[in-house]
């Protein structure tokens, strides 16, 4: 206990959940600082802020939203592969509500009328989110009452979700012109509007998990479901909540993503984003497969790391398609930071005395 009394405690810092994600983000930004001129320049045009950093924030909003939900699911010891497919379903539902011309011959495709929407705005927002939450409920039911491995249970929706999304819009892309909806992903209030939504979602998630005992329940279920059961925590309800919340977050991500491109695109909406989200959570230090302690903030930073890598590659001039390769290499290097070997090494240089204490 001598160590923790000292004013500048390396060990405490390195043990923190936030240490690795922030280190990773710092490494990438440092790389940008050295390699790319003007990467950090932020300009002020027409009352809005622009720049690479703002780009990273703006483009990462869907992944942040996904990562928040995914954190809870992974903390319960599960994983949700279907979030990308849920985004596609949400995209189709929302577009259909605004412009349901694919359903009937009497309806005309709306061209360029930002004031028209078939359903009122609150329905356009609410119904997709409800659908997304029901998708989450389906996953949760399979995992809890079906006792199916999470990876497998959510795989089903991952496979068929995109097909369902195509069915909803009769495999057509629906363009969206409705002004208020387009504003979600494209509006600016000094900062991109979607950032405020995600910040709100993050605050909500933090309040729900940390100001009530739900967060504690989630962690305890993740660490040991059986002993939580014995201490009176209904493991099934906790997991059900996590998956439903994850579906809800995927719904928000889907709305933002759809608004971003102003089109319902069942084929590519959220494609591979579940992988980004999972990696964001893993970079955030929540253990995939193990579950247990989680940190929402660390996951958010993880999502920013993922996006920072992409944006930096664009800034260097790597072509859009080749980015995947670079991203793969960077991610595996970041993940290696968590490996036992590296952890031991860091422990060796920061907390040698403590190590000896525990050994003796």
């Amino acid at each position, binding site marked *: 206990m001598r160590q923790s009394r000292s004013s500048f405690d390396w060990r405490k810092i390195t043990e923190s959940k936030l240490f690795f994600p922030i280190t990773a983000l710092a490494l990438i930004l440092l790389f940008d600082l050295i390699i790319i001129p003007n990467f950090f320049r932020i300009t002020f045009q027409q009352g809005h802020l622009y720049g690479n950093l703002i780009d990273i924030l703006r483009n990462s909003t869907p992944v942040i939203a996904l990562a928040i939900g995914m954190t809870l699911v992974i903390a319960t010891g599960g*994983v949700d592969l279907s979030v990308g497919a849920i985004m596609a379903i949400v995209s189709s539902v929302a577009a259909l509500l605004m412009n349901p011309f694919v359903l009937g011959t009497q309806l005309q495709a709306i061209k360029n009328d930002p004031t028209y929407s078939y359903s009122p705005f609150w329905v356009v927002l609410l119904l997709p989110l409800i659908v997304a939450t029901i998708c989450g409920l389906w996953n949760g039911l399979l995992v809890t009452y079906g006792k199916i491995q999470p990876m497998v249970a959510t795989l089903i929706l991952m496979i068929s979700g995109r097909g369902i999304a195509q069915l909803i819009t009769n495999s057509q892309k629906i363009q969206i012109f409705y002004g208020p909806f387009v504003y979600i992903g494209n509006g600016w209030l000094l900062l991109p509007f979607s950032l405020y939504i995600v910040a709100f979602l993050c605050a909500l998630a933090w309040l729900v998990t940390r100001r009530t005992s739900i967060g504690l329940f989630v962690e305890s279920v993740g660490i040991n479901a059986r002993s939580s059961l014995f201490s009176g925590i209904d493991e099934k309800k906790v997991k059900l909540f996590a998956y439903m919340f994850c579906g809800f977050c995927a719904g928000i991500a889907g709305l933002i993503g759809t608004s971003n491109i102003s089109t319902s695109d069942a084929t590519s909406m959220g494609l591979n984003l579940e992988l980004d989200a999972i990696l964001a959570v893993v970079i955030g230090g929540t253990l995939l497969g193990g579950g247990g302690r989680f940190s929402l903030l660390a996951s958010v930073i993880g999502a920013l790391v993922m996006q920072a890598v992409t944006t930096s590659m664009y800034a260097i001039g790597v072509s859009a398609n080749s980015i995947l390769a670079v991203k793969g290499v960077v991610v595996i290097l970041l993940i290696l930071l968590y490996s036992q070997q590296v952890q031991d090494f860091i422990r060796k240089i920061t907390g040698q005395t403590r190590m000896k204490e525990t050994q003796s």
Partner: protein
Amino acid sequence: MMQSFGTFVSRNRRLLPVSATIILFFIAYAVGAVYLPGMRDTQVFLNLFNQSPYLLVAVIGETLVVISGGIDLSVGGIVALTSTASAALLRIGWSPWAVMLLMLALGTAMGAIMGYFITYLKVQPFIATLTGMWVGRGLAYTISNESIAIYDPIYVLLQRTKILIPGLSDVVTQKGAYITPSVAVAMIVFVVAIYMAHYTRFGRTIYSLGGNSGANEQSARLMGLPVNRTKVLVYTFNGFCSALAGIFLSIYTRSGQGLLGNTMELTVIAAVVIGGTTLAGGEGYVFGALFGVLITILIQTMIQIQGTLITWWTLITVGLITLFFIGLQSIIANLKIGQATGATISRAKRNQQVLLYGGGAVVVVVLAVFAFYILKGGSSSTKSSACQLKPFRQDQAVSLMKGGAVIAYERNGGANCIDELYGIYPDGRIVGDNGTQKIEKQVTPQQVETLLSFISNLGWFTDNMYTASHVPCGVCYTYFTSVAYKGQAKTISCVDGGTDCPSEYWLMTGQFSTILPKFAPAP
């Protein structure tokens, strides 16, 4: 009687998923054959194999990985990389055999690296192989952003050669039931993998690793089994299989591009599950992989032949069948626990049963809807069948050819029942007529000459190119192409959506689409 049947089932419950798969396959095929006359052809059955050698090898490798308790998402990435890299190397004149060997080595090396990361650096299989997928696909795009066509004679030969089935074919005319060389190689891999999994020490070690959420791996380690080596080898073998799948796919499509094998890992994992392997590991049969693949391809084929259902039904059906099998497996797993601990689990068992019946009901409903559409000919499903098929205009095409055109090309049908007739003249003039409007376009005479020699090089005037017409499906196109070149003239018609047309035909229509003018879509 029931008692003894129950005992029999519970004694052999490990075989239950795989037998269910096999039975489902044959039932589905029989139902299809009753309602879709096109499926009664022997060749359509063999085409299930001809279309799937790449999927089969990939699923074999993945099955072993899953049995060992891991998962490999990198299949699609390695397929994309090997196909693109081989197409690029062939383009600069490498020997095809060297290319194939190099690609196999590349895939194997990638598998080994991922295995090393997973085993020794303790990276989650999910993450290590996911980054493997990204690296593979990213490198493929780095090599080329576009599709590279393969003209290498060996690849052409491998694609075209038909291994005729004795008794079902005529050796002299080379017509009849056949499989491709890729299928033969895939079958060899299949047999080798079965031998490896069930009759070698390596195989038994793989089985001992999976299951019981990692605890079995611990026990295997304590027993002194070579756990680390086996794990690395399993991923290495899957890398090899993925590379082989990439080669097969580049032979099948005669091209390489970064998009090949997109979301293939999903299909592969679904096929593994349908094939009766538990994703928790430790249980499953390589033998089931074959039927997992066949069911997946069968669903595709049925939807293709039926014609009016949108292809997205494939995904939904595969998803539901996967659900069904997962439900089945989890019930079996529970039966086992039930026997061990008795009544305490009975509630969970009841939940399982509710789930199975619920899931089964969903599957039945969807299959019923599916069958309903098939029976009704899908007349209410999409607007595609609402349009009137226009008559063919062959006499008009003949008069075009008489008027000096070197190519007359008619495209008829599709979702909107279009009927486009193009005439291409040697001076580069292209005229198009779709019944309601006429368009013209001028290209250089060189372009026409290049097109003609390309078509001629495809073997247009040889017996390799032949007319194959089956009844077109609801949204398929029928193509009539007449070509006159260097004193020879020949007309060949084909219907897409089928598998009986020479694949070079589609290489040709692909060339047309780059040169022909486009009609404005009908209002």
